[in-house]
Structures are given as C-alpha cells and as structure tokens.
C-alpha cells in the first residue's frame, strides 16, 4: 500500500517540476543523392515549451547531434618501419558513426554539463562512443579514437560547432549542419537535448533519410546485384567509346 502511495507521490512530484517539451523539426526529412549532388545543408530547428504551452521562460542550453548510420570498422595506424611508413597496429570498432555533427548553444560543453553526463549523451567529439571490440588498454583506445576523430574531422564527416545553435526569445532554436558530398546513405538521427543546471531535462529525436535516387541508385544496385552484367556493360562501354573515337578521328 505504501509503495503505491510512493509511486503516486513520485508522479506528482515529477510532473510538478513541469519539464519542458521539445518540438524538433528538420528542414528536410529526405536528402536525395543524385547527379550533381555536392552536399547539402540541414537546418535543425524547433521550439521549447513548458507543458502549459507557454514559453519555457528559463535559460536553457540546446545541444543538437546529427548522427549517420554506424558501421563496424577497422582503424589502422601507420608507423615508420625501417625507411618507410606502413600500417602497423590496428583496432576494431563495432559501431563508428559514419557522420557525427554536434552543435551547441554554449561556448563549451564542459560549462553546461559534467563529464559523466556528456559521455552518456555523447555531447561532443571528445565523448563519442565507438565501442571497441576486444580488449584494448584505455590509453591506446584513446589514441585510436582521437586518430579517427581527427581523420574524419578533416574529411568533413565529424564536426563540432560550439555556439552553433541560436536560441531566440527562449522559445525557438535553430542550428545549421552541412552534409558534404561524401556522406554515406542511410538513416540519420537528429537528437536534440535541452539542458539546464547540468541536467538534460528534455530530449527528442527526428530522422533524416539520406538516399541515392534515380540513376545513381540504379547504378549502385546494378553493380551489387548483377555484377556480371555490370562488368560486361563497363567493358562494352569502353570498347565502344574507343572504337567511336578511332572512327571519328579517321574522318578528320
């Protein structure tokens, strides 16, 4: 009996806190990769409201994370062996996101949450969770993780933009994240976190589908499902083009 009472009490105590509601939206729910695709810019925006529908009225920080499909990868490290540089050590990660962009309304993640919270919610490139497979000592793991983040940052696939979220009137927020042309296709998730006093008080997820369409999709499927005919097509195309050029120049 007392337990039921406790639960009811908890319910009221929690709802009394009036946690705000996040209403997230993405400018595009589908990114079409087709001929001439050079990347695109997504706008992640939305509103923070308190349950009664008014503006939340308190100071919040907003962090948005756009994450691409994860894949198992092997990361190799080059080392100087004798006179040449070649791959030496390597490590495997079970789930490395192919794309990872963080934008925050504050200048530093450390100012708004503690380490532990940041690690739980992956708020920033320093806290990215790659789940290494096999046993690996923490120092080495940190080195490899830093290596991967650095590599993908320069490829434009991982990025962090502090003060990249604009909050207006404590209601609307907006962040721009650009997708380069070399992004992987698949389902991307856009997570939004509202943070106040070191606590994540509300979170919401929206999805973005990045997919090849039209000719590009056809070529990809063709090359994967009918490898033999695809190869034959490539060979015939090259022979045909070589032959036509020969004939055309013979006329000149």
């Amino acid at each position, binding site marked *: 009996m007392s337990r039921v009472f406790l639960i009811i009490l908890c319910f009221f105590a929690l709802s009394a806190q009036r946690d705000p509601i996040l209403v997230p939206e993405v400018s595009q729910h589908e990114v079409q990769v087709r*001929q001439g695709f050079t990347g695109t810019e997504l706008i992640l925006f939305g509103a923070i409201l308190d349950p009664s529908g008014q503006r939340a009225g308190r100071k919040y920080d907003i962090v948005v994370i756009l994450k691409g499909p994860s894949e198992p990868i092997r990361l190799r490290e080059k080392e100087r062996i004798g006179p040449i*540089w070649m791959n030496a050590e390597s490590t495997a990660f079970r789930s490395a996101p192919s794309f990872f962009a963080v934008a925050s309304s504050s200048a530093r993640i450390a100012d708004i949450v503690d380490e532990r919270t940041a690690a739980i919610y992956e708020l920033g490139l320093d806290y990215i969770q790659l789940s290494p497979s096999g046993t690996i000592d923490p120092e080495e793991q940190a080195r490899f993780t830093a290596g991967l983040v650095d590599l993908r940052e320069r490829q434009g696939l991982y990025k962090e933009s502090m003060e990249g979220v604009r909050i207006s009137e404590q209601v609307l927020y907006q962040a721009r994240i650009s997708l380069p042309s070399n992004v992987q296709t698949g389902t991307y998730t856009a997570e939004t976190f509202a943070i106040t006093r070191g606590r994540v008080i509300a979170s919401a997820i929206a999805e973005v589908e990045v997919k090849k369409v039209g000719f590009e999709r056809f070529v990809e499927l063709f090359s994967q499902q009918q490898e033999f005919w695809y190869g034959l097509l490539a060979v015939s195309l090259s022979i045909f*083009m070589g032959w036509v050029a020969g004939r055309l120049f013979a006329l000149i």
Partner: protein
Amino acid sequence: MDLYLPIANLSVNGIWIVALGMLTGILSGLFGVGGGFLTTPLLIFYGIPPTVAAASASTQVTGASVSGVFAHSKRKGVDYKLGGVTVVGGIFGAGIGAILFRFLQAAGQIDVVINILYVVMLGTIGSLMAKEAMESIRPAQGSTSRSAPKRRHHPLVTALPLRWRFYRSGLYISPFAPLILGILVGILTMLMGVGGGFILVPAMLYILGMSAGVVVGTSLFNILFVTMATTMMHALTTQAVDIVLAAFLLLGSVTGAQIGTQVAQKVKPEWLRLALAVIVLLVALRMLFGLGVQPDEIYTVSPL
C-alpha cells in the same frame, strides 16, 4: 562541373576527370603505353578510394587501347598467336592478382605493396629506358661506333621446354616464356590498375627478342583483353568499378589517344622515349618520396 560518382560515393569536378583522362590518353597515343600508371595514382591523389581508382582505371585502359589495336592489326602489326598466349597468362595472372589483392587488403598492407611495386617497376624501367634513349641520341653527336651485341633472346627463354613457331614475331621459342610474362603482367594489372604496357613492351623486345614491328601492336592486344578481364574480375569481387568515373575518363582518353598518335608521327622516336623515361622516373621518385616521409594521414579506415 560537379559530377557525383555513385560507386566512389563522392562528388568530383568532371572537367578534372576528363582532363586527367586526356593526359593519359595523349601519353598512350604518344608512347603506346596505356597510361594507367599515371591514372591510378592521380585518382588516388584526387581523393578517389584506391580500390575504385584501380578498378576504374583498368576500364579506361581498355578503351584507350581499342583504337590502337585496330590500327596495328590493319598494318599486320599484331602477332595473334603470341598475343593469345600472353592473354591466357594474363587472365590467370589477374585471378592470382585478385587473390593477392584480397589477402593484402585483409592484412592492411595493400597500399604499401602497391606503392613499392610502383617504385620498383617504374624506377627500373624508367632508368633502363632513359639509358637506352640517351645512347641512341648521343651517337648522332659523338663518334663511338657501336658494336651491336647480337643476341636474340634472354638465355632463360631458351632454357624452357617445348618450342612453338610465332611467325609474325619471327620467333621459335617455348610458349612458356610469353605465358609467364603474361601471368606477371596480369598480376600487376589487377594490383596496380595498369595495363602493363610499360613492362610488356621492353620485355617483348629485350627478353623475348620479338621483331620490333609487332611489339607495340601485340602489347596493345594483350592489354585490351587483360584489362577487360580485370574489369570483370573487379566487378565480380571488389564491386569497385565506377562506370560514371570510367566514362568520363574515357571521354578524355579516347580523344587524347588520337591527339597523341598525331603528335607521335612528327617527333623523333628516341626523344619520345627519353620524354617517357623522364615522366616514368618522376612518378617513381614522387612515390618513393611518399613512402619515406610521414604521410598526411596516419590513420586509415576500412570497413569490417
């Protein structure tokens, strides 16, 4: 002009790709080599994944050699019998190359092996060609009377069992010699995405001792069929042939090849050979330099 490559998964400038094809096409027209030895490294340098670069470059070489084969066969410059033997060897070699490719890829050493192969192959052939070209240019100014050492083919060739007659090449040798040569070139084609003309031509001349008139045609004949086989092999195993990339490379290279052929008729062949030797040596030096200095990217990602 933005061009999205559906297999390489990135967007490139189409003009650059056509220009790159044109450059290698001109080389192939000028020197009778496929030009793959330039395409693959330049594509990788441009940011195309190495496997896609090698696979699509071999498709391009097919197109660049077609018109050459037609032209040479009209002049009876192709020894089909000997070419057939090297093609059979080449297809075997491509198969061996595919297995090696997979093994090295799993071990994470494919890139370094490809680079070392390039340095060794291009370095050796480039310096041999440079030496030979210098010698043929110098007597015109100097006064050394050359005593030509007359030797038909390498002693190793004569040691092989069985003998066949290859009329057009003017040879009576063991078919195993061109077969082994074909296998070696096939392996290199698969690994490096090159046609192998820069190895085949000197080997046919100096090791087999073929008559000079059929060397280039027969080499192109071999390249044509072996690159066709490697394209198929890549399509079936690595699935890395990017048909859009190949088409744009071809656009440049088939026209470049014709331009190169026109120019080649107006320039002295020994100067051409010297120019080719210099280009080959420069590529080799660049790659040697790349092996020795700290690379821009210490880390590389491969899917599991």
